[in-house]
């Protein structure tokens, strides 16, 4: 580069202005902060708190199992302990912590000033933290879930779990579903659109690749469990028999939906950790990553192949052997990309010289444990072996080897490696090394013997066992190991409490790394946003740090006097426009906490408080959203390098469209899962019972009317869209009227379909057929309610004069979702009315 984008000297006051805009509130208003570094650290801290809490549960369990016939805890407590241990580790620690790290680290790696939706992150965090604590608190009242973390019905249905326990599980999962979807939107839009200029796809840090892919995996991986929990709650609350065999349901349906989520989830947890390893190894070995593009290949293929493994958790359910074979094959195939990653790392170590820091030790420990866990994973992918190993301690050993080895050890390495970015100084290397050895020895002592106790016939989830089966020494060893492992965790906790702070202003690169997160940072992230020309910019351009800090690159100050970041094109990372970002606010936090409390009081069936909290939460969300979408009228600004960018933008390249598009993918996948449930139940019922013989189908005339109204509503929305291009948009003009008519048509279409179905006399609690058809209809009705609310909101903004050709996100989002809803409505009709006619 001949000359840098922004010339020196920088105008006086530029830096001060930037500092002022990005200032983090102090005192109690700290809670309103939305800066990714602050939310990221709170998020990581909360997730680690849950790791400790769930770890304590594990210690109690291990103590109980130290000797046969122990009666330290009752079966009731034990069953809650293992359910909570699994659920909290998976849903309140593992998934949140990977999102938390991304919230903290990703913008820095991309030299973005923040994530694209800072308040959404804040909202997701507060909902997760308060919801998670309530969920965990149920343990102290003896009403924690006790159905195992995968909650198989019928054990968890109203008949066999009449208490609130299972409802609390559904509550806890609800939060993680919400924060995961919010996270997915941030990840996908953040990695694709807020990269620094020049960071084309081939120059993205591996971690950014991974988080992009993980965001996409969440988009397709979470909907099955969202659909599953919806069905389970409907069965529990209203006795809709999706899983009741006597009424046409099938308990195996839950297993399909759960594992269709559950297995990709394992990779949602593992891939980010592997991505962190891919970032740390090159620095610690002082050589660029060998096989960068191969690792990208591995990440992409793992993500897709991981969606073909789900039924390998179900080999013992009596599936035809040929069906199992597909899942066995995919389980084998997914091992190949993992092998690629392992060999790329080893090759990098081969080419470089490893500096044995605490982080490096954790990475070596990760190799040992994860490779062993991966190999036992291949073993259980061999169907006949799985028939023996399934649901025994062998599997307990396997899953802890891959999850602790594949995720917790890299996480510890990451804490030691990246802590300087938060606090400005490293953690204690000495304590880190001690912690590593305690954890490594403790882990293997705790979990290796479980392979043996499993092959000796010990099933998982037993609160005690009989003497004389040869399990005693192995269990005692496991218990001892668990305590040693816990001591290692305790050391890290002490180190973090002593040394981890949010420093704000940070200028450090202790490991001499080559990626952008080691640029000098402040609350505004980097002073200027660098032009990126290679994968390890700090290695290839040593003066970059200084240039960036002096403000010589893009956007060295604030161009609009507000928080902002550059939006670039998804592939080549060419600057497209300047995105104005929101600042601190109480509303996302209050909305998050309000939502958590709402779900809680709803679960314990306190109706009046629930209504009040719902109103409160909606009001907070309304206030939060109301203040957005106002920067469209600002004139274009120069960001340096002779580039002038528009401030915010509408249409297909805007980040708002992308976010809505991601949301539609989530939504469509949930719907697809409901359709899958329909056809799955069709296969498990005899031909004559689907629909049941006494069921009358809705009359086709009604369906045609409803379909016509759906399509008409879309046309009116399209017509309203054309009115937005007009100079003045009026509530009582073409815009307002067509939007109102569209709402009326959607409501009428919904009522018509509901009426037609209701008139058949079929009720959802009679048979699984009715249950799933009604569910599809209810899901559609939910969309109608949401979209009419959005339309009313848009009309309100129009009335207040806030909607214009430039500020039209509220309408555009409504429009996109509306068209999707209409497609879904037509499909719903096809399923409710067309499918039974075709299938019989």
């Amino acid at each position, binding site marked *: 580069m001949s000359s840098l984008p922004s010339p020196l000297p920088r105008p006086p006051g530029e830096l001060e202005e930037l500092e002022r805009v990005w200032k983090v509130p102090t005192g109690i208003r700290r809670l309103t902060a939305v800066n990714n570094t602050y939310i990221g650290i709170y998020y990581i801290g909360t997730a680690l708190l849950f790791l400790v809490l769930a770890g304590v549960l594990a210690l109690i369990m291990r103590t109980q199992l130290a000797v046969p016939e122990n009666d330290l805890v009752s079966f009731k407590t034990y069953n809650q302990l293992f359910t909570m241990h699994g659920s909290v580790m998976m849903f309140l620690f593992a998934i949140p912590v990977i999102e938390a790290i991304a919230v903290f680290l990703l913008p820095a790696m991309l030299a973005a000033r923040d994530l694209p939706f800072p308040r959404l992150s804040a909202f997701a965090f507060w909902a997760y933290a308060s919801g998670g604590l309530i969920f965990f608190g149920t343990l102290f009242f003896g009403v924690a879930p006790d159905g195992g973390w995968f909650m198989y019905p019928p054990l968890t249905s109203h008949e066999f779990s009449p208490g609130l326990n299972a409802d609390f599980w559904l509550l806890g999962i609800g939060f993680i579903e919400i924060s995961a979807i919010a996270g997915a939107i941030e990840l996908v839009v953040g990695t694709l659109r807020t990269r620094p200029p020049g960071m084309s796809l081939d120059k993205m840090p591996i971690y950014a690749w991974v988080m992009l892919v993980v965001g996409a995996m969440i988009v397709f991986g979470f909907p099955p469990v969202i659909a599953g929990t919806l069905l389970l709650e409907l069965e529990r609350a209203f006795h809709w028999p999706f899983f009741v065999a006597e009424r046409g349901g099938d308990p195996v349906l839950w297993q399909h939906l759960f594992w269709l989520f559950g297995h990709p989830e394992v990779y949602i947890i593992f891939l980010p950790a592997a991505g962190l390893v891919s970032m740390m190894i090159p620095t610690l070995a002082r050589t660029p990553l060998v096989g960068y593009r191969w690792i990208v290949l591995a990440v992409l*293929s793992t993500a897709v192949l991981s969606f073909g493994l789900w039924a390998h958790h179900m080999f013992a359910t009596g599936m035809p*052997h040929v069906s*199992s074979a597909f899942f066995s094959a995919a389980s084998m195939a997914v091992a190949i990309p993992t092998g690629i990653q392992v060999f790329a790392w080893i090759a990098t170590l081969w080419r470089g010289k490893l500096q044995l820091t605490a982080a490096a030790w954790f990475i070596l420990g990760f190799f040992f444990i994860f490779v062993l866990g991966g190999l036992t994973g291949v073993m259980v992918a061999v169907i006949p072996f799985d028939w023996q190993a399934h649901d025994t301690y062998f599997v307990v050993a396997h899953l802890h080897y891959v999850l602790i080895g594949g995720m917790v050890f890299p996480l510890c390495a990451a804490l030691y490696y990246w802590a300087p970015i938060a606090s400005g100084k490293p953690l204690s290397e000495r304590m880190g090394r001690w912690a590593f050895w305690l954890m490594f020895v403790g882990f293997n002592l705790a979990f290796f013997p479980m392979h043996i106790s499993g092959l000796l016939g010990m099933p998982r989830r037993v609160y005690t066992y009989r003497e004389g089966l040869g399990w005693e020494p192995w269990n005692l060893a496991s218990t001892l190991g668990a305590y040693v492992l816990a001591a290692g965790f305790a050391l890290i906790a002490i180190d973090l409490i002593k040394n981890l702070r949010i420093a704000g202003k940070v200028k450090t690169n202790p490991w001499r790394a080559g990626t952008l997160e080691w640029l000098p940072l402040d609350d505004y992230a980097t002073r200027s946003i660098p032009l990126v020309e290679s994968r390890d910019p700090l290695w290839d*351009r040593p003066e970059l740090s200084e240039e960036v800090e002096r403000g010589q690159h893009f956007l060295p100050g604030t161009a609009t006097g507000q928080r902002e970041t550059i939006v670039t094109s998804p592939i080549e990372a060419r600057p497209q426009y300047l995105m104005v970002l929101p600042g601190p606010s109480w509303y996302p936090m209050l909305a998050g906490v309000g939502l958590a409390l709402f779900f809680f009081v709803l679960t314990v069936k306190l109706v009046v408080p629930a209504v009040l909290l719902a109103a409160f939460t909606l009001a907070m969300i309304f206030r939060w959203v109301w203040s957005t979408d106002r920067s469209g009228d600002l004139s274009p600004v120069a960001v340096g390098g002779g580039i002038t960018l528009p401030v915010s933008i509408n249409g297909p390249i805007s980040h708002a469209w992308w976010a809505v598009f991601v949301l539609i993918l989530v939504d469509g996948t949930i719907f697809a899962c409901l359709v899958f449930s329909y056809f799955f139940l069709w296969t498990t019922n005899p031909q004559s019972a689907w629909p049941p013989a006494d069921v009358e189908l809705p009359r086709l005339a009604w369906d045609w009317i409803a379909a016509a109204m759906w399509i008409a509503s879309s046309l009116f929305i399209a017509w309203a869209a054309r009115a937005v291009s007009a100079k003045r948009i009026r509530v009582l003009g073409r815009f307002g009227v067509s939007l109102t008519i569209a709402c009326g048509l959607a409501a009428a279409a919904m009522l018509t379909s509901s009426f037609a179905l209701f008139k058949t006399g079929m009720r959802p609690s009679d048979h699984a057929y009715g249950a799933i058809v009604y569910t599809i209809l209810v899901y559609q009705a939910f969309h109608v309610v949401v979209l009419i609310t959005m339309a009313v909101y848009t009309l309100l903004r129009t009335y207040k004069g806030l909607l214009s050709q430039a500020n039209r996100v509220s309408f555009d989002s409504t429009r996109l979702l509306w068209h999707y809803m209409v497609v879904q409505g037509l499909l719903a009709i096809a399923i409710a009315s067309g499918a039974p006619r075709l299938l019989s």
Partner: protein
Amino acid sequence: MNSHTNRSFTRTTFYISAGLLIWVATFLATYVLAAVACARGILLSTVFGMGLVPLMILAATVIAMGLTARVLYIAIARYRRSALPVDAGRTSAIERSQQMDRFIHFLAAAVAGLSLAAIVLNGTAAIAYDSCRATGAPDQHRPQ
């Protein structure tokens, strides 16, 4: 920046993941075929001593292999054609753009290659077909 035209995000995404998408389609098609055939007790007849279901699995596998091989072939050809820029730190914008091209063709080819292996493994399931038999059990359909 340079004047190189913008690549379509959608097209690039589909190009890179073409191989995996073919695998997804094959996996779903064969799984659904076997599941429905076994649940409904259809397609149980044999042709030349081979079951209809495994034959259809094999046919799907061969078609998918052909498609993937085609993607692989195209991507490799494009990869070979793309110029090889200096893989060093400081490069011109044009060179960086060429690196990008090459990277995308590489990914498309490698993804197709790996998918080919996954598709072959998926097709191997055909040997496990034994008239819908489950674990250690004799001929069986769902009880209902």
